[in-house]
């Protein structure tokens, strides 16, 4: 009797994938519990406290929804991109460029008031799409890895925003702080009641999810993505251009991230400020949103809410227990670790053999 680990040729069923994902989340929260213990906090009490202050309170719930908006926009776009095996890790920079372009529209353009908000989103979309388009050109023309270019372009975007808020765009009314001036009222998105949910962006995000669902199930682009995701070679024989597909997909994904950035500045901040305050790593977290949802864009609604919950839970932990909000990054890292591990486990199986054949 012996056993060996061999590759499992079968594609894991939805149920298996789902249970592994839930298990990953569970294991990550167990490890976080150990950190609580190390700080002398009863983890059970900490978790009930976090739940009551997030899911159990109106303010907590509204915050979860508002933080899920950028995650949903970026996550749904990334889901589309990752199906083509194009590693766009540049959503963070695409968000910032969207925020930057929206700020320009709000402060320096002379659009009439009623057109301002649509223009703001349009500019955000275009800027994000351009920022997503450059890596595809660099890859198709020069064969440069998109992992590197999208990553580098996040930092280029970051320093462009920093340059603008410290230099040319620095607000004259801001007493030396590194902000732009405040947006005019006509450039501020309406909110739901006294929450911070800027509903126009939320609706755009939901429309995007629906659109991506339709693209993947009914449109020609979706068919091409499907062929490419299974075998790029088969795609080539079928006359599908890899780069043409990736080009459209990156326009959508970059544009969506740009919309997220526009929504953040016009809905929440009403000015352009330090990039870490605008995005808080939404672009990187969205990778997790897309991955947890696997290939179904509708599920990104759930996974975006989940990651938003973790963000809000981090704030709560900081307020209630005085732990640094960095605990959010610990959980994100841990969830990713366990997901990768489960990904590996799903692809292998243990086979028991009485005799080697």
């Amino acid at each position, binding site marked *: 009797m012996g056993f060996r680990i061999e590759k499992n040729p079968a594609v894991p069923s939805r149920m298996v994938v789902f249970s592994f994902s839930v298990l990953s989340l569970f294991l990550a929260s167990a490890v976080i519990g150990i950190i609580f213990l190390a700080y002398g906090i009863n983890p059970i009490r900490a978790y009930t406290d976090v739940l009551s202050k997030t899911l159990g309170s109106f303010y907590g719930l509204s915050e979860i929804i508002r933080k899920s908006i950028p995650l949903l926009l970026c996550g749904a776009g990334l889901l589309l991109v990752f199906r083509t095996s194009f590693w766009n890790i540049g959503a963070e920079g695409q968000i910032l460029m969207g925020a930057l372009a929206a700020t320009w529209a709000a402060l320096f353009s002379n659009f009439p008031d009623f057109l301002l908000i649509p223009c703001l989103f349009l500019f955000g979309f275009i800027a994000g799409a351009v920022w997503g388009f450059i890596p595809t050109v660099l890859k198709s023309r020069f064969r440069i890895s998109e992992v*590197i270019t999208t990553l*580098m372009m996040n930092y280029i975007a970051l320093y462009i925003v920093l340059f603008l808020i410290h230099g040319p765009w620095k607000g004259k009314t801001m007493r030396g702080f590194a902000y732009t001036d405040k947006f005019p009222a006509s450039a501020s998105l309406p909110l739901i009641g006294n929450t911070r949910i800027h509903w126009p962006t939320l609706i755009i995000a939901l429309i995007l999810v629906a659109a991506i669902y339709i693209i993947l199930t009914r449109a020609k682009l979706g068919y091409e993505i499907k062929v490419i995701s299974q075998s790029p070679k088969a795609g080539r024989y079928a006359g599908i251009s890899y780069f043409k597909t990736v080009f459209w997909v990156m326009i959508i994904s970059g544009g969506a991230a740009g919309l997220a950035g526009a929504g953040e500045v016009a809905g929440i901040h009403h000015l352009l400020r330090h990039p870490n305050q605008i995005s808080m790593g939404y672009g990187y977290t969205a990778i997790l949103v897309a991955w947890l949802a696997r290939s179904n864009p509708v599920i990104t609604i759930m996974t975006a809410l989940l990651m938003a919950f973790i963000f809000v839970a981090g704030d709560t932990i900081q307020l209630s227990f005085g732990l640094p909000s*960095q605990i959010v990054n610990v959980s994100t890292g841990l969830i990713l670790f366990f997901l*990768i591990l489960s990904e590996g486990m799903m692809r292998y199986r243990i086979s028991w053999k009485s005799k080697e054949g």
Partner: protein
Amino acid sequence: MELQTFIIDTLSRALAYGTPLLLGTLGEIYCERSGVLNLGVEGMMILGAFAGFVTTYATGNPFLGVLAAAIVGGSASMIHAFFSITIKTNIQVVSGLAITFFGLGLTGVLGRGWEGKPLDASLPIIGSPFLESIPVLGPIFSGQSVLVYISIGLALILWFILFKTSWGISIRSAGEDPEAADALGVNTSLVRYLCVLTGGVLAGIGGAYLSIDYRPSWTQGMTVGMGWIVIALTIFSFWNPLAALIGSYLFGSLFYLSFKLQPYLAPELLMIMPYLTTILALVLLNCSKTFRRRLGVPAALGLPYNREEK
């Protein structure tokens, strides 16, 4: 005279600030040469910075601090190695990012009580009468830490191993064509594991240099994105340890210049340079096929190797 002191100061700070970049880059060069892309450098550096600081604070011995940083950085890199070599997931990108998230997060949580504590012990400063007696440029070397010299020596040794020994051939072939390497009897997995480990150890030490020596204290997120500059530098130096030497000091000088030239030039425009020049370097590199081949971009970079699938 004014100009001369300015140049000397810049070079001296370039040496000091370039050292953590150099250590990280040397490690990442080995990692990528063997075919593994590790985006966790920032995470491994900050873990090393924290471990190094705490150990030095507790024991009063900076060398133990560097050792602890090496162990912690190495251990973190083993997680990445396990995911990308043993489990063979196609998601090296994500696993590296996860290490960065985790490292920044964990040190942020654990390090809260350590902020602002002074560190008495520091790494010895090596006075080298020989180097300091060099006319004009001599003052650059005064007051530099022992790690500055060690990292320069390391760059030379690692260059020699990579290009002049059979180990180097094994490493490069694992990153170039793992199938052929395997056929020639190279244990690709082992080579990759060792290279990733080298990367983690050096990134950890680079972090420790920051917290023990450059700014003897602990601040949350004190690596300030150096890990990402390392990723850029690895490419900018075309995966060559000697070029990394120049590149690290070049990018290191930007940190000093962006501070020093602030009245004349927006610091952000200088800080953008590492990322912008890396993309431009890649464009130039890929303009010519022979150029690309001669410089040796690891062809199998980021691809897991499945022996049984062949």
